[in-house]
């Protein structure tokens, strides 16, 4: 690992000033950052430790009844936040199934959204891959069982590692991004960058910008949400399939559904096909299965992950059923 400076600003202006230094990066929990440094994937010359900044740990109501969550809240705090039960439960569900208790106690909401893909070629410095500025994607012809099932034709078949981003996109969340000059709100979906936009980028954050808060819109009457991560192992594992959904459900009928798949594409994958199946319909086990089939009909599996598409289909159907209040494991219906 390279040598680096370590700065510990106490407020946002100090942090933004400290990060202007060339080669400087923010460090919150440091979970992913240290992994990347140890593997020699990045070599920052200064780490700006932002965990002391109280303003980034605030939870507040927005004017329109939404919830602003400070970017430095830990994943463990999010998993247990009482304000997030009910309509927003997909978020604590995603937070609670992330990593391990030790990591959840350290990792932050903002850091989680900025984390890099777990692609094993990206994370090995021996592979100069397209996401690191190289000329090829090694996964495309290599070991790609865990790689993208959708949006995998743009020269990088990584999958996004943030489970929390899947839930946030389903809930229509925004990020407040602040710089010394200004502040802007962008949706989580826009924050994350697909290879077709810029193959090397993971998110849109520029040097001199910081995520101040994550803003959840006020929940609508009868809104519900659900998140589930299907792992191979039950202890500490990345998903083989994960799904977050949200909609308004009156009299069993689904309105304005969002169906978001994680571990599926380089960014959270919105399945409009599944949404179209669900919209205006009464949620049943059959309908959920139909929506899952519709979602996976768009998949373009790589050489080794066609069977993972089957796992996905089962998980999508279950999550839709669970969200709709139907038991997917019951026979019949």
């Amino acid at each position, binding site marked *: 690992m390279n040598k680096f400076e370590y700065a510990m600003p106490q407020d946002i202006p100090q942090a933004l000033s400290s990060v202007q230094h060339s080669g400087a990066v923010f460090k919150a929990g440091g979970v992913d950052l240290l992994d990347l440094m140890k593997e020699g994937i990045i070599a920052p010359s200064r780490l700006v430790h932002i965990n002391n900044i109280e303003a980034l740990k605030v939870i507040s109501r927005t004017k329109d009844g939404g919830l602003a969550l400070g970017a430095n809240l830990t994943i463990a705090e999010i998993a247990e936040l009482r304000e997030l039960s009910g309509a927003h439960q997909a978020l604590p569900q995603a937070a609670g199934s992330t990593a391990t208790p030790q990591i959840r106690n350290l990792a932050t909401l903002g850091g989680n959204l900025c984390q890099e893909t777990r692609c094993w070629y990206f994370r090995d410095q021996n592979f100069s891959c397209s996401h690191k500025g190289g000329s090829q994607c*090694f996964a495309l012809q290599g*070991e790609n069982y865990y790689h993208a099932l959708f949006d995998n034709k743009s020269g990088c078949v990584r999958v996004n590692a943030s489970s929390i981003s899947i839930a946030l996109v389903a809930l229509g969340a925004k990020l407040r991004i602040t710089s010394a000059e200004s502040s802007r709100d962008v949706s989580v979906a826009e924050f994350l960058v697909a290879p077709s936009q810029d193959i090397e980028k993971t998110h849109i954050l520029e040097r001199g910008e910081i995520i101040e808060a994550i803003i959840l819109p006020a929940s609508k009457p009868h809104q519900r949400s659900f998140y589930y991560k299907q792992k191979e192992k039950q202890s500490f594992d990345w998903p083989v399939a994960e799904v977050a959904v949200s909609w308004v459900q009156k009299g069993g009928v689904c309105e304005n559904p969002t169906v978001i798949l994680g571990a599926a594409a380089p960014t959270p994958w919105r399945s409009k096909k599944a949404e179209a199946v669900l919209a205006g319909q009464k949620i049943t086990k059959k309908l959920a299965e139909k929506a899952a089939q519709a979602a996976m009909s768009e998949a373009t599996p790589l050489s080794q992950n066609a069977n993972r598409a089957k796992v996905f289909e089962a998980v999508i159907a279950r999550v839709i059923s669970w969200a709709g209040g139907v038991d997917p494991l019951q026979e019949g219906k």
Partner: protein
Amino acid sequence: MTKDVRIQVGVADNLQEMALKVPKNDPRPWDGNDQLKYIGGRTTRLDGVAKVTGAAKYTFDMRLPGMLYGKFARSPYPAAVVKSIDYSKALKAPGVKAVLPMQEKLPFSVRFVGQEVAGVAAKTLNQAEEAAKLIEIEYEVKNFTVKLDDAMKENAPLVWDVQVKEEASAGDIPGQENTLPQVGNIRGPNVSARNATKEEIDSLVNASYVTSEGVYRTQVQTHSAMETHGVVAKWDDDKHLTVWASTQSTFRTRKDFAERFELPEANVRVITEHMGGGFGAKFGADTFGVMAAKLSKVTQAPVFFMLDRKEEHWAGGNRPSSLQNVRLGANKEGKLEAIKMLCHGSAGIGTGSGTGNPFKNLYPCEKLYVEESDVFTNAGMGRAFRAPGHPQGIFALEQGMDDLAYQLGLDPLEIRRRNTSHEVRLKEYEIGAKKFGWSQRNPKVAADSGPIKRGVGMANSVWYYFYGTGFPATIQVNSDGSVEIMNGVQDIGTGIRTVLAMIVAEELGLDISEVKVKIGDSDLGAGPASGGSQTTGGITPAVRKAAYLAKQKMREVAAPLFGVSPEQIGFENGRAHVLGDPSTSLGWQQVASRIPGGQFKVVAERKKDYFGNQFQIICGVQFAEVEVDTQTGVVKVKRVVAVHDCGRPMNRLTLESQINGGIIQGVSYALFENRLLDRNTGHMVNPNLEQYKIAGSMDIPEIDSTVIDVFKGHNSTSAMGIGEPATVPTAGAIANAIYHATGARIYDLPMTPDKILAALA
């Protein structure tokens, strides 16, 4: 000089008397009627508190004044020739004290990604790592092959252009070294036949009433011990070397260093006070040990050289893969009539992938034909791994047996009963079936109606009793009453330190807290290697005899104090008394205070067993219950009931821990672990503990372990080993339970969701 003893031998409570001649100075062997205070009971580890508080010092914890850190530059190519090495940049890097090549003569070949090319020593670990990257190595890159099936092809790139000789390690089954033909990348076959030729065996199988055929595949599993491989090497002077080593054999390691540096063995001291596991991969000086000692010599400083997790996966050893073609034939009653098994497996650039032993040794079958061949690939070398060949072989053989049972409409346990007459095995079936509730099992497969289906299955273990001789155990008794037991044996984490104290305390009638154990130091006298499950069986008879001799000495000291002859003295509860008269007694310390000269030492050596080197099977059976999600393919192991034997149990508590560990490692092997090499570059893509998946706490089933007592009287303790047998049957039992749950047989390890779904499709 011998004496006649009569002892009670047998299985559990089914005992019978046996007359035995034992040497005059040997204690009467413990038998089935002995009521013992410690042996066979449950004693917590003597070093447990030190381990959980961090006070215990492992090799990894060693910090010596002026110590340097060593690191390798490793090949990024799976096959290449090292043409030249330029050290100039590395030597100029901060903190660097020395850089040395792995081999003196250039050019030399490297045959897998991660093979050692050069070593560097620097003041800090980070400096060593950075300097290793600055060593400029010129490679001539060659064609390579990493997949078993590709390597077997006629035109595959050759991994070795020379004849490979098998080198056995202390973890291998003794007597398995051989010289075999080598064509292309295939070395073998090693043929074992019983009353059948290759030509005859197929027709024998075909003629059977029922047959089972299958092509089984098992993956490469890396040992992934908690403490990685490594040493700290320090030259005391030009001719004396001290090595702290994370090793399963202090003495094999000493011998290796002595040979490599042309020193008398006595000039090398190897210390392993605590050790974080090995599973068969840690014997000898190894590449990093030799490099550490070389770097230490040129820098005249101690050198710390431990592998990191990535290096551990690349070059620290592994359980070889296998591709097993199995054909079994049985008669109407389910009795095996013919076994055919042809296997190919890859131990990377090494040998030892054979899976034939379970086929040869589990069931008595008159007609058998087995061929085992190693296939070389450009991958890290396989090493002995917890029952080499056995979890692989059992995965195939026991699924075949299960298949025969279902074809015949027989209970899978019943077909096993019909194929064994082993008293221990039959007893284990009885206990295990009862504990598991096997009789309540639904004879139908895939009987559950919902998408999540439950199933049960079972499989046998088979292992063997090995032991070495010549190990001296020394006991010193001091005038303050303190007792020390000394031997160089290492405790690889299984608890031999505690067992030694238990034996001494038992024999001398002392409390265990009064016995001090000194082990893990080659200066303390040769001890067994912890491989082949032979530590306990190897060392305990010597320890018991030393304690017995110490007791004779103490009798001589005590006799005049009571005015009786020495044979009339007994020791119990820390006191000496006249046998048959406990009313007057003296404390152990009071007696010890009269030891002439203030202390004495006795030494006893491990001799051959009373029955010589008899081939003995260690049995064991495991029953598993699984839950298979037929929509996602995810398998959860809910419950494992294990019944094992290992002669006379010494410490039941640590024995059960070893069984639990064997099952957990078996679950992990069955469902998760898989060393994955990139087919295009030969790089391992998951050299970590995140994507190389190992069962975590939530993946561990409910485990019920039982150890049954087998009293043989073959030596004074009758102890045998459990380390290996405990992991042998787990994957096979789980596979059979998956079949029972779903009706789909999984022929390929690990049994991941994609394979389950493919089999159900």
